[in-house]
Protein backbone atom coordinates (compact mmCIF):
# COMPACT_ATOMS: atom_id res chain seq x y z
CA UNK A 1 0.00 0.00 0.00
CA UNK A 2 3.10 2.16 0.16
CA UNK A 3 2.38 4.02 -3.01
CA UNK A 4 -1.39 4.31 -3.02
CA UNK A 5 -2.27 5.46 0.51
CA UNK A 6 -0.27 8.09 2.32
CA UNK A 7 -0.86 10.12 5.45
CA UNK A 8 1.95 12.64 5.60
CA UNK A 9 3.04 16.04 6.87
CA UNK A 10 4.71 17.01 3.57
CA UNK A 11 3.00 18.55 0.56
CA UNK A 12 2.34 16.42 -2.53
CA UNK A 13 2.89 17.02 -6.23
CA UNK A 14 -0.35 16.44 -8.15
CA UNK A 15 1.47 15.77 -11.42
CA UNK A 16 3.58 13.01 -9.86
CA UNK A 17 0.47 11.43 -8.34
CA UNK A 18 -1.41 11.68 -11.65
CA UNK A 19 1.46 9.91 -13.43
CA UNK A 20 1.48 7.23 -10.75
CA UNK A 21 -2.24 6.46 -10.88
CA UNK A 22 -2.89 6.54 -14.63
CA UNK A 23 -2.45 3.44 -16.77
CA UNK A 24 -2.81 2.27 -20.40
CA UNK A 25 -6.30 0.75 -19.93
CA UNK A 26 -7.60 3.92 -18.24
CA UNK A 27 -9.11 6.68 -20.32
CA UNK A 28 -9.20 9.23 -17.55
CA UNK A 29 -8.21 10.26 -14.06
CA UNK A 30 -10.65 12.17 -11.87
CA UNK A 31 -8.98 14.03 -8.99
CA UNK A 32 -10.27 15.80 -5.92
CA UNK A 33 -7.87 18.16 -4.17
CA UNK A 34 -8.99 19.69 -0.90
CA UNK A 35 -7.37 23.00 0.03
CA UNK A 36 -7.46 25.33 3.06
CA UNK A 37 -10.23 27.90 2.59
CA UNK A 38 -9.83 31.41 3.99
CA UNK A 39 -13.24 31.35 5.64
CA UNK A 40 -15.60 28.92 7.33
CA UNK A 41 -19.15 29.49 8.55
CA UNK A 42 -18.73 33.24 8.24
CA UNK A 43 -15.46 33.33 10.16
CA UNK A 44 -12.14 34.33 8.65
CA UNK A 45 -9.47 31.62 8.83
CA UNK A 46 -5.80 32.52 9.15
CA UNK A 47 -4.40 28.96 9.29
CA UNK A 48 -5.29 25.39 10.15
CA UNK A 49 -3.82 22.39 11.87
CA UNK A 50 -4.87 18.81 11.18
CA UNK A 51 -4.59 16.00 13.70
CA UNK A 52 -4.60 12.36 12.68
CA UNK A 53 -4.92 8.99 14.39
CA UNK A 54 -2.49 7.71 11.82
CA UNK A 55 -2.62 3.94 12.18
CA UNK A 56 -6.42 3.91 11.98
CA UNK A 57 -6.54 6.52 9.22
CA UNK A 58 -4.31 4.42 6.96
CA UNK A 59 -6.43 1.33 7.69
CA UNK A 60 -9.67 3.18 6.95
CA UNK A 61 -8.30 4.69 3.73
CA UNK A 62 -7.19 1.25 2.55
CA UNK A 63 -10.69 -0.08 3.21
CA UNK A 64 -12.34 2.83 1.39
CA UNK A 65 -9.95 2.41 -1.54
CA UNK A 66 -10.66 -1.29 -1.91
CA UNK A 67 -14.42 -0.93 -1.47
CA UNK A 68 -14.53 1.86 -4.05
CA UNK A 69 -12.47 -0.01 -6.66
CA UNK A 70 -14.80 -2.99 -6.21
CA UNK A 71 -18.05 -1.02 -6.15
CA UNK A 72 -17.38 1.25 -9.14
CA UNK A 73 -15.11 -0.99 -11.21
CA UNK A 74 -12.35 1.60 -11.50
CA UNK A 75 -8.71 0.72 -12.22
CA UNK A 76 -6.74 2.37 -9.45
CA UNK A 77 -7.00 4.95 -6.65
CA UNK A 78 -4.33 7.00 -4.89
CA UNK A 79 -5.13 8.90 -1.70
CA UNK A 80 -2.75 11.28 0.10
CA UNK A 81 -3.89 13.22 3.19
CA UNK A 82 -1.75 15.75 4.99
CA UNK A 83 -1.67 16.58 8.70
CA UNK A 84 0.11 19.21 10.77
CA UNK A 85 0.17 22.97 10.29
CA UNK A 86 -1.25 24.40 7.08
CA UNK A 87 -1.84 27.86 5.66
CA UNK A 88 -4.67 29.20 3.54
CA UNK A 89 -4.59 27.68 0.01
CA UNK A 90 -2.33 24.79 1.09
CA UNK A 91 -3.21 21.35 -0.18
CA UNK A 92 -4.97 19.08 2.32
CA UNK A 93 -5.91 15.95 0.41
CA UNK A 94 -5.42 14.38 -3.02
CA UNK A 95 -7.73 11.68 -4.31
CA UNK A 96 -6.96 10.40 -7.82
CA UNK A 97 -9.12 7.77 -9.52
CA UNK A 98 -8.04 6.14 -12.80
CA UNK A 99 -11.03 4.76 -14.68
CA UNK A 100 -11.91 3.33 -18.07
CA UNK A 101 -14.62 5.96 -18.56
CA UNK A 102 -15.61 9.19 -16.91
CA UNK A 103 -18.94 8.33 -15.24
CA UNK A 104 -17.43 5.74 -12.92
CA UNK A 105 -14.36 7.94 -12.43
CA UNK A 106 -16.44 10.86 -11.16
CA UNK A 107 -18.72 8.65 -9.06
CA UNK A 108 -15.82 6.77 -7.47
CA UNK A 109 -13.84 9.94 -6.70
CA UNK A 110 -16.84 11.52 -5.06
CA UNK A 111 -17.51 8.35 -3.09
CA UNK A 112 -13.96 8.35 -1.68
CA UNK A 113 -14.17 11.93 -0.40
CA UNK A 114 -17.65 11.39 1.06
CA UNK A 115 -16.50 8.27 2.92
CA UNK A 116 -13.26 9.93 4.02
CA UNK A 117 -15.28 12.72 5.61
CA UNK A 118 -17.22 10.35 7.87
CA UNK A 119 -14.86 7.42 8.52
CA UNK A 120 -11.25 8.53 8.56
CA UNK A 121 -9.90 9.82 11.91
CA UNK A 122 -8.61 13.25 10.94
CA UNK A 123 -9.64 16.50 12.62
CA UNK A 124 -9.22 20.08 11.51
CA UNK A 125 -8.57 22.89 13.95
CA UNK A 126 -9.20 26.30 12.41
CA UNK A 127 -7.50 29.45 13.68
CA UNK A 128 -10.17 32.09 13.25
CA UNK A 129 -10.77 35.67 14.23
CA UNK A 130 -12.76 34.22 17.19
CA UNK A 131 -9.92 31.93 18.30
CA UNK A 132 -9.15 28.24 17.73
CA UNK A 133 -12.04 25.99 16.76
CA UNK A 134 -12.06 22.22 16.33
CA UNK A 135 -14.17 21.38 13.30
CA UNK A 136 -16.69 18.63 13.95
CA UNK A 137 -17.59 16.79 10.83
CA UNK A 138 -20.38 14.70 9.48
CA UNK A 139 -22.01 12.10 11.67
CA UNK A 140 -20.68 8.56 11.59
CA UNK A 141 -23.60 6.12 11.34
Amino acid at each position, binding site marked *: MDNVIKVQREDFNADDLLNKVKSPPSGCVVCFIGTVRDHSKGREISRMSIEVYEE*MAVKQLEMIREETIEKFGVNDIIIVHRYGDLNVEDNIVFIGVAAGHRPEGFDACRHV*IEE*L*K*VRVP*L*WKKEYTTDGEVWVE*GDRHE
Partner: protein
Amino acid sequence: MKIKVKYYASFRDMTGKNEEVLEVKDGITVKGIRDHVRGIYEKIAQKEQVLVAVNGTFTQLDEVIKEGDDVAFFPPVSGG
Protein backbone atom coordinates in the same frame (compact mmCIF):
# COMPACT_ATOMS: atom_id res chain seq x y z
CA MET B 1 -8.75 -5.60 33.79
CA LYS B 2 -6.70 -2.60 32.62
CA ILE B 3 -7.49 -1.01 29.24
CA LYS B 4 -5.43 1.72 27.65
CA VAL B 5 -7.62 4.36 26.01
CA LYS B 6 -6.49 7.20 23.74
CA TYR B 7 -8.16 10.58 23.19
CA TYR B 8 -8.00 12.67 20.02
CA ALA B 9 -8.72 16.24 18.96
CA SER B 10 -11.24 18.04 21.20
CA PHE B 11 -11.48 14.96 23.45
CA ARG B 12 -7.80 15.34 24.28
CA ASP B 13 -8.48 18.93 25.25
CA MET B 14 -11.51 17.87 27.37
CA THR B 15 -9.64 15.13 29.21
CA GLY B 16 -6.31 16.93 29.26
CA LYS B 17 -4.75 13.60 28.26
CA ASN B 18 -3.41 11.84 25.18
CA GLU B 19 -4.11 8.49 26.80
CA GLU B 20 -4.71 6.79 30.12
CA VAL B 21 -5.19 3.32 31.60
CA LEU B 22 -8.68 2.59 32.93
CA GLU B 23 -9.57 -0.14 35.41
CA VAL B 24 -12.75 -1.77 34.06
CA LYS B 25 -14.57 -5.01 34.72
CA ASP B 26 -13.85 -8.07 32.56
CA GLY B 27 -16.25 -8.56 29.65
CA ILE B 28 -16.99 -4.85 29.31
CA THR B 29 -18.54 -3.87 25.97
CA VAL B 30 -17.83 -0.86 23.76
CA LYS B 31 -20.99 0.74 25.13
CA GLY B 32 -19.83 -0.08 28.67
CA ILE B 33 -16.45 1.59 28.29
CA ARG B 34 -18.07 4.58 26.59
CA ASP B 35 -20.41 4.99 29.59
CA HIS B 36 -17.38 4.62 31.86
CA VAL B 37 -15.54 7.45 30.10
CA ARG B 38 -18.66 9.61 30.05
CA GLY B 39 -18.89 9.02 33.80
CA ILE B 40 -15.40 10.44 34.32
CA TYR B 41 -15.54 13.44 31.95
CA GLU B 42 -18.63 15.62 32.07
CA LYS B 43 -17.69 17.42 28.86
CA ILE B 44 -17.61 14.12 26.98
CA ALA B 45 -20.90 13.12 28.62
CA GLN B 46 -22.46 16.24 27.10
CA LYS B 47 -21.37 15.34 23.55
CA GLU B 48 -24.07 13.81 21.40
CA GLN B 49 -21.52 11.96 19.26
CA VAL B 50 -18.79 10.02 21.02
CA LEU B 51 -16.98 7.77 18.55
CA VAL B 52 -15.14 4.70 19.80
CA ALA B 53 -12.71 2.67 17.71
CA VAL B 54 -11.25 -0.65 18.82
CA ASN B 55 -7.95 -1.64 17.23
CA GLY B 56 -8.39 0.97 14.52
CA THR B 57 -11.88 -0.12 13.49
CA PHE B 58 -15.40 1.09 14.22
CA THR B 59 -17.26 -1.68 16.02
CA GLN B 60 -20.74 -2.56 17.28
CA LEU B 61 -21.69 -1.16 20.68
CA ASP B 62 -22.15 -4.68 22.08
CA GLU B 63 -18.67 -5.87 21.09
CA VAL B 64 -16.66 -7.08 24.08
CA ILE B 65 -13.33 -5.39 24.84
CA LYS B 66 -10.39 -7.68 25.59
CA GLU B 67 -7.24 -6.93 27.58
CA GLY B 68 -4.61 -5.50 25.23
CA ASP B 69 -7.18 -3.95 22.86
CA ASP B 70 -6.38 -0.50 21.57
CA VAL B 71 -9.40 1.70 22.38
CA ALA B 72 -9.71 5.26 21.02
CA PHE B 73 -12.25 7.99 21.80
CA PHE B 74 -12.86 10.93 19.49
CA PRO B 75 -15.44 13.37 18.12
CA PRO B 76 -16.89 13.18 14.58
CA VAL B 77 -14.06 13.36 12.06
CA SER B 78 -13.48 16.38 9.82
CA GLY B 79 -10.74 15.59 7.30
CA GLY B 80 -10.85 16.08 3.57
